[in-house]
């Protein structure tokens, strides 16, 4: 007796169900394709704005708003020295770096105290956002604007709120302390705030640092990692940032600014109540909340993505770490969408309520479960001979081949617009990864995300640990 005979409704309607999966997967891919085309043209337009060298002229200007960089750190002893140095050395005339030591169990705080000659300061905590108790605030004796907040462990969102409480800049940048910002990244990410008074938040492009060479906290040679796992993730980052985010930003419907690098008007963050501590997707939740709060009050709200300021981040090189990360991302997405479900198909929120939010619900939150069910049903029906092989082939062509095309397109967009990989061999390797990730890796991610969806539904919380290998530092 086959599995299908236990489910008569499936047995009767399997062909129609199969067609549902085909149409579903085809629709995701078609929408993603149009978003990618839109993203390409929007990227081209963006390149006509002030570029890096032009922005450097502004470095001397005192007209730029002050920025507080908030970098939560938990057991980051491997990378903290380099990343804080990189943040302090950013080309920006008026910025302070606030590292929040979230109760690290390793010697993150000791390294910071010794490396930057910190003393326990009397700096006033002016904010009122509730956080775990702060054990002390440290500042440097050297002429560098570094503040370290040492507090009881409370998670990333709690740390960011603690950082916001001591921040004094007009703008607040939330970054991961294990990430490296490019020297001009702040200048560029600030630009939308200077050109659009309605700008509330801006996100930058996140790139994979694994495989690159880092000197003094700066990426000096862009390269591709030898690990295929990292290469697959590089493709995922390109696809997500250069396709989706540019396009969603184009019609002011961006629902996610990566927690690794986002810049906000500080008053807007405080007005919104800071970062939500009860979710693992605090970055997405905040952006959705900002949209909801401001739009429901009919207050202007622009949230944009700019593709040039680059933040380099270390991606997992171990399968188990990647599993935890993806599980967390999926739970974060589901939680954020659920918390703000009133926006779903709500015309009051414009394109965001009518397109971006339903897109995220249908394809990002529920997508993995539907796609996984499609794979399982197709294989089961094909094995039991209950499906036309042509229909099964169609499902695989739609899901796998279209996935390959989207990944290749993202590499093409990268090559045609930003061109950050100087070695043509790396571009070819990326293309190979764009093809190969669709045969096994993507399906595994679908499975993990489906588990994440299930975990979110049963109320699982917690982050899980992320093992750091540290940046590949040049010997020169």
């Amino acid at each position, binding site marked *: 007796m086959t599995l299908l005979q236990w489910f008569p409704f499936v047995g009767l309607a399997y062909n129609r169900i199969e*067609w549902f999966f*085909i149409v579903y997967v*085809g629709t995701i891919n078609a929408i993603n394709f*149009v978003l990618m*085309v*839109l993203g390409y*043209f*929007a990227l081209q*337009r963006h390149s*006509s*704005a*002030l*570029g890096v060298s*032009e922005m450097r*002229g*502004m470095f*001397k*200007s*005192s*007209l*730029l708003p*002050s920025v507080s960089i908030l970098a939560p750190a938990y057991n980051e002893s491997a990378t903290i020295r380099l990343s804080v140095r990189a943040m302090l050395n950013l080309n920006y005339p008026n910025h302070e770096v606030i590292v929040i030591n979230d109760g690290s169990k390793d010697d993150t705080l000791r390294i910071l105290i010794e490396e930057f000659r910190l003393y326990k*300061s*009397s*700096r*006033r905590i*002016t904010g009122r956002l509730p956080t775990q108790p702060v054990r002390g605030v440290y500042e440097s*004796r050297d*002429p560098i*604007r570094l503040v370290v907040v040492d507090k009881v462990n409370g998670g990333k969102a709690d740390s960011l709120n603690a950082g916001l409480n001591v921040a*004094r800049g007009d703008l607040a940048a939330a970054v991961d302390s294990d990430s490296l910002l490019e020297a001009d990244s702040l200048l560029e990410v600030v*630009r939308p705030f*200077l*050109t659009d008074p309605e700008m509330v938040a801006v996100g930058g492009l996140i790139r994979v640092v694994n495989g690159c060479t880092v000197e003094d906290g700066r990426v000096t040679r862009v390269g591709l990692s030898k690990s295929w796992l990292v290469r697959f993730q590089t493709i995922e980052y390109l696809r997500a940032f250069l396709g989706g985010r540019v396009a969603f930003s*184009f019609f002011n419907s961006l629902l996610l600014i990566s927690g690794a690098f986002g810049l906000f008007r500080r008053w807007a963050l405080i007005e919104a109540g800071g970062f939500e501590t009860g979710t693992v997707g605090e970055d997405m939740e905040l952006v959705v909340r900002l949209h909801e709060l401001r739009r429901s009050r009919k207050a202007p709200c622009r949230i944009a993505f700019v593709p040039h300021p680059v933040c380099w981040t270390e991606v997992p090189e171990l399968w188990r770490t990647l599993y935890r990360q993806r599980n967390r991302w999926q739970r974060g997405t589901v939680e954020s969408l659920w918390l703000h479900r009133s926006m779903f198909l709500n015309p009051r929120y414009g394109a965001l309520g009518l397109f971006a939010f339903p897109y995220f619900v249908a394809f990002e939150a529920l997508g993995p479960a539907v796609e996984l069910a499609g794979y399982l049903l197709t294989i089961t029906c094909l094995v039991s001979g209950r499906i036309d092989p*042509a*229909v099964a*082939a*169609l499902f695989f*062509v*739609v899901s796998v*081949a*279209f996935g390959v*095309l989207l990944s*290749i*397109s993202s590499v*093409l967009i990268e*090559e*045609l617009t930003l061109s950050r990989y100087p070695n*043509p061999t790396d*571009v070819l390797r990326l*293309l190979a990864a764009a093809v190969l990730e669709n045969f096994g890796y993507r399906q595994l991610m679908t499975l993990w995300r489906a588990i994440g969806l299930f975990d979110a539904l049963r109320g699982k919380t917690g982050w899980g640990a992320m093992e750091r290998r540290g940046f590949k530092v040049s010997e020169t």
Partner: protein
Amino acid sequence: MPFGARSRVWMSTALVTAAYGILIWAANRFVTAPHFPQWGLSVTLAFTGVQFVLAAIILSGALVSRTLTLLLMRRGMKVAPEIQSCLAAHANGENRRKRLALFLRRYPEVVETSLFAFLSSLRGMERERLQKLAADLGLVASWTKRFRSGRVSKRRRALELLAVTGSPEAMGVFRRALDDRDEWLRVMASRALVAGGNVREVHRSFEFALRQTPAVRSLVAEDLKPHMQILAARALPQVLRSGDKSLVLAALDIIWGWGRAVPVAEVSGLIDSGDAIVRAVALRAAPYASTDGINGKIVSRISDEAPLVRRAAAVAAGKRRIEEAIPQLLARLQDSDERVAVAAARALATMGEPGLALLEKEVVMGAPDAASVALEALEKARIGRTDWE
């Protein structure tokens, strides 16, 4: 992104999607449908095929273009020293026009780049000879023509090249470029006009800066810094008296951005404006407005009803080291707005001994909030830190 640019993005997306649709229809009709009778499969395969072919073409094109650029660069590098020595000889008075015209026909990019480098670094007779050479070789005319291009990168390059020639024909191009839709082109044009040193053009750039975004304004303000005394004589006072809030705020922003003393009496009057934002921005610019009686106005605004004005006044008092402000600053240590309290403490710390003594007293005897603000200010003063707020 402006409306025009947005509609161009939509239009391009619609065109590309339509072109894809047509290609897929054709591939399905003539290639896949005859072999795969099932409609869904045939269309999907057609889409896949079309996309693969296009991806291959685009990628090959990108790689070929990258390789060609590399080859041309290498070829250019071989002849560059010869071109540069010709240019150097011409600048020194020898006539190398014919030889350079020959080079220009074969290696236009290298000649342009070398000429640009020479014109940017030379002065006096040598520069004039090369400026004349650029005109004689028809380069100025060609760059002026290139400026009409629809491509931003071409217009930018043309303007950059024209800016170093300093030719009178180029001035018209610069003036037109102030209205260009490209932000950086507008900055470049303003920069070129200011570099000429003509007072009328400096005024034109100043007026241009007033109407730009803060990003552009900050760049143009830096260019205008050497001419601030000229602007302070007439243009700045006129704008500050105009009553147009956005222009007044922009002008005050520019004064603050310069960060140097400039004699503009009108700033003092704006400190008493009925609009709190104007008062605050005027106070921010006040430390640089060298005019009589401004100190009294700053002190009076430390007790303003608006917190942003109180804060700006406290900062201004600290920057000008107005000792008469000490009692008011001390009172503000208990301000309901913490940013005002912090600014007042910092201002007191910059006053030297009298301010520091009061802060010490406040730490010991003051109310808890005031004591904590005072303690931080004292701590910073002791380690010689002034870069905090």
